[in-house]
């Protein structure tokens, strides 16, 4: 592989500094004991040791994003008549995410299909996505709850990243995957990486072996429709859920959103903001009717979307990257991989779930 | 927020309709001189004032908040101001914990006939807020 490189430990800081000259760089920063993606600046305490608490989805899919602003002006002749002007803003800065994990990067591929591969593409997501380069760090160790290998991923999976960096003991082994990645590699002044490739591969396999195969060896879990439709199963499994929405906001593959108008007197904005199917108001209609009023119906739809509906619509792609955040940060430790493993039992496919 | 000439600060006043609003009206009718920073919001009773009104005002651009109701035992609804007294005392003690000077929030009891007392309260409270200065530096005042 010609497109590899190596950056020794002492030059690592300069490498990141160099990137921030070219674009707005987002790095995982340590605050209290939390790792959160922030725009790079010198004072930031950068932490690559573990996956960030929140995935970098906020860089390309911000938690609140102005779609357009509107302003009312009174028509001088006819004060009763109010004129409206709309103004959209579609310019996005060049951005680099460094320190995402393979599961985070794969998350954006799950976004790409509904957001861009359609006859009505989303210009906001598409604009930011095209301006963003994703430099992923392969995992040095799985985190509590990780199950990426059970959904076709892995701690060194290249899918969705422009560059994959693996930490070896004297520095960082770089693999450029896409054109964007190659361009950055050339400009980074990195040394030749071939002498470090073997060490990096060994490290990657070693970590890969340590990720538990929670429920599906071949990475393509198939769910039995009859058990999926059995509401008692869901009622029992989700009795402990408090239906908060932390799992949807922390999930790299969740892309649902809400649109609201925020107005002050004579002007305002229509904004898009994160939303999640686990919230009561997600499907609540003005008449009071709610197609999914209970938490177990909502979670059934959440599992259904990721493991049945999305694959049905996009030729078998599972809309879950196994990052484990929804398990790690669930107030009541609801374990989606355990639920999916139970749903597989009927089909008897090769699963060694608990 | 409508534009405010730089000298004036934004002070919000929640006045109970039966006593304090009457008191402010008496002060106005008797032409008592009062600073103009305070904007009055009439509420049915001081018991209607949710501490969240005060918090929302303070963190969305107000520099000071005043709440005034009937004197204890005179409440038109008999116990509205008793509940208010507890809530507003709880809030007053919470504000410093958040980093907001509790002198920016004041609650008192003024009856409809006490125009004089209203004028003194408004004048003193406005000068107290001016001594403290704006709560929000320019940029943050926009919601």
């Amino acid at each position, binding site marked *: 592989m010609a497109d590899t490189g190596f950056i020794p430990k002492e030059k690592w800081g300069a490498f990141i500094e160099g990137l921030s000259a070219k674009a707005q760089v987002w790095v995982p920063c340590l605050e209290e004991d939390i790792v959160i993606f922030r725009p790079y600046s010198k004072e930031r305490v950068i932490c690559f040791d573990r996956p960030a608490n929140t995935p970098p989805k906020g860089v390309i899919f911000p938690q609140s994003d102005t779609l357009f602003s*509107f302003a009312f002006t009174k028509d001088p002749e006819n004060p009763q008549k109010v*004129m409206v002007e709309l103004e959209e803003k579609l310019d996005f800065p060049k951005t680099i995410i460094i320190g995402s994990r393979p599961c985070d990067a794969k998350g954006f591929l799950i976004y790409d299909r509904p957001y861009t591969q*359609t006859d*009505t593409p989303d210009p906001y997501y598409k604009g930011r996505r095209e301006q963003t380069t994703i430099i992923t760090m392969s995992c040095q160790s799985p985190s509590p709850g990780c199950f990426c290998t059970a959904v076709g991923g892995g701690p060194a999976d290249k899918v969705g990243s422009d560059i994959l960096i693996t930490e070896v003991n004297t520095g960082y082994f770089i693999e450029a995957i896409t054109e964007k990645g190659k361009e950055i590699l050339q400009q980074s002044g990195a040394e030749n990486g071939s002498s470090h490739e073997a060490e990096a591969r060994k490290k990657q396999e070693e970590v890969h072996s340590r990720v538990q195969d929670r429920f599906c060896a071949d990475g393509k879990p198939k769910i039995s429709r009859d058990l999926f439709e059995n509401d008692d199963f869901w009622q029992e499994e989700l009795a402990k859920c408090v239906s908060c929405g932390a799992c949807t906001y922390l999930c790299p593959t969740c892309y649902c959103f809400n649109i609201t*108008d925020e107005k002050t007197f004579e002007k305002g904005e229509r904004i898009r903001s994160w939303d999640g199917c686990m919230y009561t108001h*997600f499907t609540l209609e*003005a008449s009071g009717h709610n197609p999914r009023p209970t938490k177990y119906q909502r979670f059934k739809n959440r599992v259904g979307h990721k493991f049945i509906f999305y694959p049905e619509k996009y030729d078998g792609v599972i809309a879950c990257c196994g990052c484990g955040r929804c398990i790690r940060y669930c107030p009541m430790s609801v374990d989606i991989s355990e639920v999916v493993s139970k749903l597989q039992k009927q089909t008897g496919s090769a699963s060694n779930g608990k | 927020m409508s534009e405010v000439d730089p000298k004036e600060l934004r002070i919000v006043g929640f006045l109970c309709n039966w006593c304090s609003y009457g008191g402010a009206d008496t002060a106005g009718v008797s032409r008592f001189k009062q600073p103009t920073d305070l904007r009055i919001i009439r509420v049915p009773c001081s018991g209607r004032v949710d501490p969240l009104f005060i918090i929302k005002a303070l963190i969305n651009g107000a520099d000071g908040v005043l709440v005034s109701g009937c004197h204890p035992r005179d409440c038109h609804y008999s116990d509205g101001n008793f509940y208010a007294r507890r809530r507003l005392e709880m809030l007053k003690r919470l504000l410093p914990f958040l980093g907001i000077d509790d002198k920016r929030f004041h609650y008192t009891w003024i009856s409809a006939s006490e125009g004089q007392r209203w004028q003194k309260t408004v004048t003193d409270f406005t000068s107290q807020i001016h001594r403290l200065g704006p709560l929000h530096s320019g940029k943050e005042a926009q919601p």
Partner: protein
Amino acid sequence: MASNKNPYLPELVTITNIIEETPNIKSFQVVFNDPERMKTFTFEPGQVGQLSVFGVGESTFVINSPPTRMEYLQFSVMRAGEVTGALHELFPGDQMGLRAPLGNWFPYDTMKGKKILFIGGGIGLAPLRTLILYMLDNRGDYKDITIIYGARTPPDLCYKEDLKDWESRSDVNLILTVDAEYPGWDKRIGFVPTVLNEVAPSPEDTIAITCGPPIMIKFVLQNLAKLNFKDEDIITTLEARMKCGIGICGRCNLGSKYICKDGPVFSLAQLRDFPGVI
């Protein structure tokens, strides 16, 4: 819908006329501010649009004037929540935002040469109206048309002029009903599903199209089954909480289908493989 256009940016429309259909339903006739757009705008009967009241929000309504009558686009709005409440405060001449056309439409080609049975309840007549008027403007393409329409009380009946016109026409069989006795009401009394049983239309070579409150749909579908209408011959149009209108924001899904993009028009056969819906 041109693809590189921003699908979230509404086009400005102006209200030309407002009709008080019932105490809580108003019909808004709107035209695009850009006259050029008015000429080039096309849509199919059954497609929906998102009406924007800037500062309040957006809601989805069916375009219930037919594509054959393009002097204006008409939307009927029942007051229910924030946006519909704000819409009911507007006057002719006010401006709104419109994102249209969205979603699929009634498969009127496959209905050609067949008998058509419309079953509507309350504001449920809105989506049916666009198709009825479209069919009346191409009357020759369809055999006899039967319309069973009911509401709680006579003032709750929508499109009173259309009802008079349809009643007077010989080539339309209109059956009106209200839920209970009402002074001055001399026609049928009874819920729409029970009237459907009384009329008992034959399923032979007939397409049934129904829309109304969920409770009515439930019993209408049961009765149609008893009258052994086949699932693929029963068509309905669904309603749901919608935000993006282009099949991304995730809230109006029925399994893998989105009501705003893959619907709102579905046949009962399609709805069967979403258990729990019917």
